[in-house]
């Protein structure tokens, strides 16, 4: 598998604000790649640099080995699905989808045929003559997709394309997007601030914060082995606790946590005070373990959320499946918590 987009030391500044600090990133061909982060983290800026809507202040952007950093957007073989779709309001759905083909010089018959096939692909065949304003949000979204896919780009950029849709539609579109990417066999670079979206669709995720990439990996790596507090906290729910690391060997680290000595997978850190993270679903009530007091029990339907406080004063949340046989602890009860050792993660900061 080759590399579709290779970003080397990209820098972008807006006046005195640096939006991207020396970002390097290689994106595989034929992958669903997600740039994930909170607003202002630089993910959209990075996408716009690839699309050519912003100029870099340093570094290179290679598309299949060719430097495209100084090409205009209309010279780059990438297409974009814009956040609010940016459909041309004065053109019919078919004309919108055919626009890129027209610009590429296809004759009317060829582009009508291809645009028709694209509309079929996104299940909008009957809507060819409508104006964008006569479509629902989800339909507009699919027109935007068809329009961007019609010229057969090798890389498709998607700028938070699902954020304007309601929850049900968003969930349906996730599956549809992933299917489209696999069927078309092209690279999708997807920008989102929604971690659930990122986890469900991506082959690989780059978590961004403050203009830098914090962690790069598969959804499972990102979720289960976050490298720092930002990633651990941003992706899903987690408990972050302070711990004293005594020794780090090749495979395991020994540390004391709230008065107990535990071992966990090693990380590239030196002994001393560090933070560890553990997901609430990896903490269970047990006969022995960390002593804690239950503060609150929250009913979530499929799950129960129990908020407890350790003797050190730190908060520890746990999640238990509402499988029917479970009797939730009462607030105020003294309990013991078992931490799954393999699930503890040492964080770099």
């Amino acid at each position, binding site marked *: 598998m080759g590399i579709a987009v290779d970003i080397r030391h990209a820098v972008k500044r807006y006046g005195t604000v640096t939006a991207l600090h020396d970002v390097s990133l290689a994106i595989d061909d034929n992958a669903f790649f997600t740039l994930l982060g909170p607003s202002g983290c630089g993910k959209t800026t990075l996408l716009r640099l690839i699309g050519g809507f912003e100029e870099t202040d340093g570094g290179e952007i290679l598309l299949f080995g060719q430097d495209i950093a100084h090409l205009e*957007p209309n010279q780059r073989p990438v297409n974009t699905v814009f956040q609010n779709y940016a459909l041309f309001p004065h053109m019919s759905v078919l004309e919108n989808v055919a*626009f890129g083909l027209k*610009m590429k010089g296809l004759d009317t018959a060829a582009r009508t045929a291809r645009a028709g096939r694209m509309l079929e692909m996104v299940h909008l065949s009957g809507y060819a003559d409508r104006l964008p304003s006569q479509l629902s949000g989800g339909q507009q979204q699919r027109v935007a997709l068809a329009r961007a896919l019609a010229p057969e780009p090798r890389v498709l950029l998607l700028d938070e394309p699902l954020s304007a849709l309601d929850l049900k539609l968003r969930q349906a579109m996730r599956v549809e997007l992933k299917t489209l990417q696999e069927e078309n066999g092209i690279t999708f670079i997807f920008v989102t601030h929604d971690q659930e979206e990122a986890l469900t669709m991506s082959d690989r995720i780059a978590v961004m914060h403050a203009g830098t990439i914090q962690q790069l990996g598969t959804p499972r790596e990102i979720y289960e082995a976050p490298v720092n507090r930002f990633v651990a906290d941003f992706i899903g729910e987690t408990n972050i606790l302070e711990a004293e690391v005594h020794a780090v060997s090749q495979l395991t680290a020994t540390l004391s946590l709230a008065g107990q000595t535990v071992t966990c997978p090693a990380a590239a850190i030196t002994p001393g005070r560090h933070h560890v993270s553990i997901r609430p679903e990896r903490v269970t009530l047990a006969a022995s373990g960390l002593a804690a007091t239950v503060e609150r029990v929250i009913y979530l339907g499929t799950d129960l959320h129990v908020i407890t406080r350790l003797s050190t004063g730190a908060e520890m949340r746990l999640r238990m499946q509402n499988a029917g046989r479970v009797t939730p602890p009462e607030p105020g009860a003294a309990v013991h918590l078992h931490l799954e050792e393999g699930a503890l993660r040492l964080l770099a900061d």
Partner: protein
Amino acid sequence: MADTRRRTLLLLPTWAVIGVLMLIPVLLMAVYSFLTKEFRGGVEWQFSLAAYDQFFLTRGLFGDEPAAIEWTYINIFWRSIWQAALATLLCLMIGFPTAWFIATRPPSSRAIWLFLITVPYWVNLLIRTVSLKFLIRDNGPLNEFLIALNLIDNPLPLVNTNLAVQLGLFYSYLPFMVLPIYAAVERYDTALSEAAADLYASRWTTLREIILPVVKPGIVAGCILVFVPSLGAFLAPDLLGGAKTFMIGSLIDEQFRGSQGNWPFGAAVSMVLMTLVLIVLMFHARAQGSRR
């Protein structure tokens, strides 16, 4: 029921204003155009087609030849249409970039630019037109400036030309072009331009195929707002032009002045002008309606 009655009541002032200030004067004008003229101005209440006859037909100097088409007034109309169209085009060429410039400034400074556009219009139109005449006359600042620069030896004879009338119309109505286009451009979503560029359109194609069609309602509104008053303008042609640049507005103006006037004829010319304007507006409405 009470709601409907209240709505009617609230709309009453509007209907009254439209009725008293628009419908009645226009009806009066229509009636006057079919009456007989009185010699010291005013009308005699006797039906007559003389005004329209005078406008469209000629029967020779003594009125004894067979009726033929009278070209004098039609030519004045033609010249007025031509002048107004040119003024509209000039306003569009200058107004569109101006509106674009203002709409793309940061929101905080847009208000200042719009303010600067409207400031000159706080001064009466007559004063402004006279000032323009002062600027471009033979020994006015413009000519003296050009002579001082050694660009010309003798002053350019600008006053009493079509060019001067053009300048006057352009200057009078420019904001009517800028403001509606500004309103349209300000609402324009620049992501559309990015989408066009993303789909391989050049800058020129983006302007032609995306930007212009999307802001077209603003452009059309601006053109109508400049073209219609230019067509009936009389200050600019009167003050800046001469006999050769006579326009419809001046012709109508003349008919209602002093004892030389001819009220029914003035009213008839007005009716012809209004018909023309209505035809233009109808074409516009049809063009708007045919869009899906």
